[in-house]
């Protein structure tokens, strides 16, 4: 039986990459400390900032929200009802009940009211559902945060997400994406600062935190994410991790430490301008979101 290195009680969690065995209480403490350390390492925000946590009802966003509250940050939640059938219904209920439990505000935007739900949007846009969904989420997150006085948007992207996207960008030598792969995207030209405080916490660590904190989260996968390439990359990295614990953390951390500073030197910032329709920042005259909205209204008019 493994024992907690802090108190000698029975350990529930073993973290091979850190060579740590921890009981429930000390694991929860370890997690909160790691989140705090990451926030400080990348100068993400401080306790005076109003933080908006992008909440999906999944383990990562709810664990992040819980941890920020434990650490004494001023953090509210923001949920977008994507209109993906039972999946959205269930995830909304879980996000809502969590917000009530912790006594924090959950702001909600519904695509039923704002435009059309994601399944319908797919008829108007040939891109994969995840890309369309990403455009919509980024637009509403930024707009809502700005209009409601939030200085920071925190998302639940974890180490596995970051390592998988780094792997994909490296595999394709997507240099322009690599230049922007940093856990803090600064506030500029109409964009609110976006941060990823779980970037050094694995998906498993995040799930264990949710389970041990008694967080009820949606375990089912979004029906549109089935077969996503990101999962293949994660499975591949998991194989490496099993053979050599710490591989993912090393791959990502060393990229940030050694490669990112070199890439950043040659970064040419895209020229942003306010979208002619909605005024949100965009690299083109009309932003991706308004383009999508136009496609929808044009096709609806034809039908």
């Amino acid at each position, binding site marked *: 039986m493994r024992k907690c290195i802090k108190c000698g009680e029975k350990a529930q969690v073993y973290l091979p990459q850190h060579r740590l065995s921890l009981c429930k209480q000390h694991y929860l403490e370890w997690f909160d400390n790691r989140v705090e350390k990451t926030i400080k390492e990348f100068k993400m925000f401080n306790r005076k900032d109003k933080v908006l946590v992008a909440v999906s009802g999944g383990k990562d966003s709810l664990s992040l929200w819980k941890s920020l509250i434990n650490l004494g940050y001023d953090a509210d939640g923001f949920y977008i009802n994507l209109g993906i059938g039972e999946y959205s219904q269930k995830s909304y209920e879980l996000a809502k009940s969590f917000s009530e439990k912790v006594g924090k505000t959950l702001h909600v935007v519904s695509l039923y009211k704002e435009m059309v739900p994601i399944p319908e949007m797919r008829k108007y846009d040939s891109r994969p559902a995840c890309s369309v*969904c990403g455009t919509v989420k980024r637009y509403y997150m930024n707009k809502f945060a700005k209009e409601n006085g939030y200085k920071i948007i925190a998302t639940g992207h974890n180490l596995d997400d970051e390592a998988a996207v780094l792997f994909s960008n490296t595999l394709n030598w997507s240099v322009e994406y690599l230049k922007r792969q940093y856990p803090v995207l600064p506030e500029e030209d109409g964009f609110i600062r976006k941060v990823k405080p779980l970037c050094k916490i694995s998906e498993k660590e995040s799930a264990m935190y949710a389970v041990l904190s008694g967080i009820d989260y949606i*375990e089912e996968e979004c029906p549109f*994410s089935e077969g996503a390439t990101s999962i293949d990359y994660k499975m591949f990295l998991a*194989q490496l991790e*099993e053979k050599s614990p710490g591989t993912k953390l090393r791959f990502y951390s060393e990229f940030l430490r050694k490669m990112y500073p070199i890439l950043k030197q040659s970064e040419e910032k895209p020229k942003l301008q306010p979208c002619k329709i909605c005024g949100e920042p965009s690299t083109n005259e009309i932003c991706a979101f308004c383009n999508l909205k136009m496609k929808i209204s044009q096709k609806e008019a034809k039908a």
Partner: protein
Amino acid sequence: MEIKVRYRGEDKVLTFEKDKVKAKDILKALGLSKDYAFVVKNGEIVEENEPITQNDEVRVVNAISGGLL
């Protein structure tokens, strides 16, 4: 031996040919790796060599999720 497990919001029954089942056998039966999945027995996260019996309440958590990165 049959073990009932809760996995991704659904109840499943796993059948094993042996009488002594461990947490790692459950992960294996579901095709999962310990790198991203774990077993919760009677409310506690357990290590891979933990014995599991028919009387235990078992939940399997697969932490991997996909979608847009």
